[in-house]
């Protein structure tokens, strides 16, 4: 066997074979008595043209080896080239279906299947103490220190701290935002990260607090031009000096999904205790010892946690220890959004396949003659099926190539718009894995089509077709299959359309619901004041300086210093209390309200309506802490059925009660898709020691003009301060960016699906009319009016669409319950939505069936019948 495989039909072999033939012939002539030269001549004469024989034999070998395939391929390419419109429609459908599926599954792959970018990632775990009442997962530093010291199952336990606002200001003449992460010294050992240059942190760095800094590769390139001499130099952030000790490798990925430019050491006190007045808390990651399972590690830390809980029962009430693999932690909070997209992409691929299958069946129907002729002159069924499948394969290959373009664009869009919504998305890249997924999807598509050519080739009956030669009737058959495919397409697109329009309505509600304020012409200015030099008097001086300047800029109507904005509550919060009731015993989320320090002009600047009483006045500032203004949500929550005006609230055992003087309208202070939270406006005008200065400005000037003037002034009077200016519209736009992306994406999917379904309906009817021309001609000859014929064809379309739409709506009603958490302002079963979707589809389908119907109605019976 191996000899047969290895013995290639070489040119020399063939020549030798023919040489041998001549030699034998020569010998035979010599045996009959001819001299050698005569015998050779005779042999050659009898043999004829050696070149021709060689050529003919060579051809046999060549074609059989791979010639059949390339012949099929060439033929398929020619066929596809001839039907250009068909080919474009089919390739585009496949490209969209394959592209959408590949993009979405690449994201799935990145999140769930790609190995984490760390050494031995299976050993890495995430550990926290879960506090359901506070809704947080953190480990207090004393527990971390004890665990790190006493555990028996870990190689390393690392701590990180990422506060929500990890932004710092880079010092120097050109202030910039820098995002910082704080890690324990053993962080790099834990994750198996070695620096690209310099060193990592040392254990003693933890004791001194943050002094050493490591730069991420990106930050190092952007800010330091990738210079190696930055090692050992000083970086000033928020006014504090840090020494650059190392540079992280390019492949480094921070284990928490936040932006990080610089890493510092955490200050970890070995003697910290839960009895201390304030305790820092960390996110903890551990590398377990080889051979130790996650549950063993959990048991190990579990005993330690129980001991701590016995010592501080009040502190850990209701808390529990959570320990899971890093992979589970990183993938745990994947939103429903991804599953929605996967389902939508799968739908789209199914519709694309159904559509292309339909187009192919119609086309092959039209080519029945050609196929029959090929069968008649000796092509077997297998051969024909292979030929048809080659066409399909060529279409899929072209579709996949085009799909790669879509995928590249789509993944860019994802990273840009959905980066905050899905974990690990920063690791997405168009690479061979993505290509592999595309190939897998393409193969799946091919498998879906696999049966089609065999089915078609199996139905070829040369005699029947050829006997009809000259007739226009096309023997296509498959009408049931084609109708079923179109019904499926319609149903799937109804599902997609329903989901897309529900999301669209959500977006509309988010942007157009009563905001409670007028966002036009409102700017927010934020100026971080960082560093030791900004003590309270200094901050106050800067604040009033800037406020005065803002009011001087031409166009300013009002400017206010407030640590909240209409779309975000302040950073502070209080537990609600009132003087005429007993004090609340403990901190509870249901009794909290956000607090916003603001001044008299805030209401006017933000454009918020006053409901009752009065707002804060300049007069109040002379005796801060005396009055409070509630929003309507707070008035409803804490003073149901009574007027809050004049009530004493927010005091403590030591007194310090504040009098409620007014109620203002609610704003979307928790973001656009959530109801307003209770909020109180206070006149504590002194900017607190760590918060940034925030101004709300109502101006007639353009944003750019005001920002320019302000920066100019800041450079002159307060050099080194960073100024961020944003319109409220921009801020709202950012809040709606990711829902908008979801909606646009799904709407795009739905639109494509819709289009394909309509094309499908049109295709089936047009084909059916062509097929039934003779029948229609006879009907008309027998007296059917054009109107009746029109109605007949339209009815056929209506049945298809109705069946599809009904099953689609049934499925959508069932499926949209999983969408509930993504919706706002509209219910998953909203009848209006379904009515609109169905109506639109019905109209489009009617239009699609009208064209073929009209063609049927203008059939000239005389012409058709004569043609027969």
């Amino acid at each position, binding site marked *: 066997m191996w000899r*047969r495989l290895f013995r290639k*039909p070489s040119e020399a*072999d*063939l020549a*030798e*074979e*023919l*040489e*041998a*033939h001549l*030699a*034998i*012939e*020569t*010998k035979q002539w010599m045996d009959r008595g001819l001299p050698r030269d005569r015998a050779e001549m005779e042999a050659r004469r009898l*043999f*004829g*043209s050696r070149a*021709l*024989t060689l050529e*003919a*034999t060579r*051809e*046999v*070998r060549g074609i*059989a080896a791979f010639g059949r395939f390339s012949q099929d391929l060439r033929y398929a390419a020619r066929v596809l080239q001839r039907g250009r419109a068909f080919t474009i429609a089919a390739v585009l459908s496949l490209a969209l279906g394959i592209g959408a599926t590949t993009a979405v599954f690449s994201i799935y792959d990145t999140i769930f299947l790609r190995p984490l970018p760390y050494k031995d990632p299976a050993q890495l775990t995430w550990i926290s103490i879960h506090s359901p009442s506070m809704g947080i997962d953190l480990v207090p530093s004393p527990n971390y220190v004890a665990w790190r010291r006493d555990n028996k199952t870990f190689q390393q336990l690392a701590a990180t701290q990422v506060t929500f606002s990890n932004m710092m200001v880079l010092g120097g003449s050109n202030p910039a935002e820098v995002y910082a992460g704080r890690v324990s010294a053993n962080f790099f050992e834990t994750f198996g990260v070695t620096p690209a240059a310099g060193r990592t942190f040392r254990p003693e760095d933890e004791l001194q607090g943050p002094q050493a800094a490591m730069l991420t590769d990106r930050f190092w390139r952007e800010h330091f031009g990738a210079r190696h001499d930055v090692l050992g130099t000083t970086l000033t952030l928020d006014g504090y000096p840090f020494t650059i000790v190392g540079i992280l490798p390019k492949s480094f990925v921070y284990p928490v999904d936040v932006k990080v430019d610089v890493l510092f050491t955490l200050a970890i006190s070995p003697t910290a205790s839960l009895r201390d007045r304030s305790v820092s808390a960390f996110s903890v990651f551990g590398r377990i010892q080889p051979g130790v399972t996650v549950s063993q590690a959990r048991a190990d830390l579990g005993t330690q946690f129980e001991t701590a809980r016995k010592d501080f029962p009040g502190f850990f009430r209701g808390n529990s220890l959570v320990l899971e693999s890093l992979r589970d932690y990183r993938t745990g909070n994947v939103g429903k959004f991804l599953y929605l997209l996967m389902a939508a992409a799968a739908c789209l691929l199914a519709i694309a396949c159904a559509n292309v299958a339909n187009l192919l069946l119609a086309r092959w129907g039209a080519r029945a003659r050609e196929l029959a002729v090929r069968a008649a002159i000796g092509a077997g069924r297998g051969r024909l099926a292979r030929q048809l499948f080659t066409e399909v394969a060529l279409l899929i290959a072209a579709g996949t190539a085009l799909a790669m373009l879509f995928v590249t664009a789509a993944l860019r869009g994802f990273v840009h718009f959905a980066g905050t919504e899905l974990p690990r998305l920063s690791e997405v890249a168009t690479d061979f894995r993505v290509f592999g997924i595309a190939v897998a999807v393409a193969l799946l598509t091919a498998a879906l089509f696999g049966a089609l050519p065999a089915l078609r080739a199996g139905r070829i009956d040369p005699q029947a077709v050829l006997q009809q030669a000259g007739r226009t009737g096309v023997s296509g058959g498959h009408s049931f299959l084609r109708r079923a495919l179109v019904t499926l397409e319609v149903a799937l697109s109804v599902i997609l359309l329903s989901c897309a329009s529900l999301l669209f309505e959500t977006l509309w509600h988010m942007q157009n619901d009563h905001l409670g304020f007028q966002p036009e012409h409102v700017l927010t200015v934020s100026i971080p004041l960082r560093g030791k030099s900004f003590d309270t008097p200094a901050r106050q001086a800067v604040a009033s300086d800037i406020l005065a300047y803002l009011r001087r800029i031409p166009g300013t109507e009002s400017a206010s210093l407030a640590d909240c904005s209409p779309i975000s509550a302040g950073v502070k919060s209080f537990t609600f209390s009132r003087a005429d009731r007993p004090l609340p015993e403990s901190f509870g989320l249901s009794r909290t309200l956000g607090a916003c320090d603001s001044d008299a002009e805030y209401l006017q600047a933000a454009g918020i309506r006053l409901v009752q009483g009065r707002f804060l006045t300049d007069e109040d500032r002379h005796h801060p802490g005396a009055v409070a203004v509630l929003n309507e949500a707070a008035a409803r929550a804490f003073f149901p059925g009574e007027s809050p005006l004049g009530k004493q609230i927010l005091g403590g055992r030591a007194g310090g009660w504040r009098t409620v003087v007014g109620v203002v309208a609610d704003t979307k202070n928790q973001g656009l898709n959530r109801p307003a939270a209770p909020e109180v406006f206070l006149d504590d005008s002194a900017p607190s020691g760590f918060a940034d200065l925030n101004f709300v400005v109502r101006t007639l000037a353009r944003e750019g003009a005001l920002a320019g003037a302000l920066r100019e002034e800041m450079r002159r009077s307060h050099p080194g301060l960073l100024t961020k200016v944003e319109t409220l519209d921009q801020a709202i736009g950012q809040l709606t960016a990711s829902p908008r992306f979801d909606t646009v994406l799904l709407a795009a999917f739905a639109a494509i699906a819709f289009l394909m379904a309509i094309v499908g309906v049109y295709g089936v009817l047009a084909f059916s009319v062509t097929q039934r021309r003779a029948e229609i001609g006879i009907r008309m000859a027998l007296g059917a009016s054009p109107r009746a014929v029109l109605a007949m064809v339209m009815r056929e379309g209506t049945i298809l669409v109705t069946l599809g739409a009904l099953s689609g709506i049934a499925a959508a009603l069932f499926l949209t319950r999983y969408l509930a958490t993504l919706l706002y302002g509209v219910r998953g079963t909203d009848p209006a939505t379904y009515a609109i979707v169905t109506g639109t589809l019905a109209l489009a389908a009617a239009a699609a069936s009208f064209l073929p119907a009209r063609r049927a109605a203008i059939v000239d019976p005389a012409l058709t019948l004569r043609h027969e």
Partner: protein
Amino acid sequence: MPDRIDLMQGTLDLLILQVLQWGPEHGHGIGQAIRRRSQEVLQVEHGSLYPALHRLEQKGWVASDWKMSEANRRARYYKLTPKGKRQLLQEQSRWRQLVRAVARTMKPVKE
């Protein structure tokens, strides 16, 4: 020399298989055997014989091997494979059918 008859499409394969059922033979021998057994009526063009042999080998009906020939040099000997034997039986019965059918058609019709 008697008149030569060009071989019908497809019959050459049958003849080659038929010749090979008596044992391995090289191209020259196969051509000669066909000529002899047809009493010099069937002349096989070498330009058809060798492509046919290679085609049959591709289909797996015959296998080939290099052996010493009577001319004292290497020649490629072809032999029937089991698959080829089955094919030969099929072709034989199909051929007989064809011959009978053609014969019936050629017979003058007696009314």
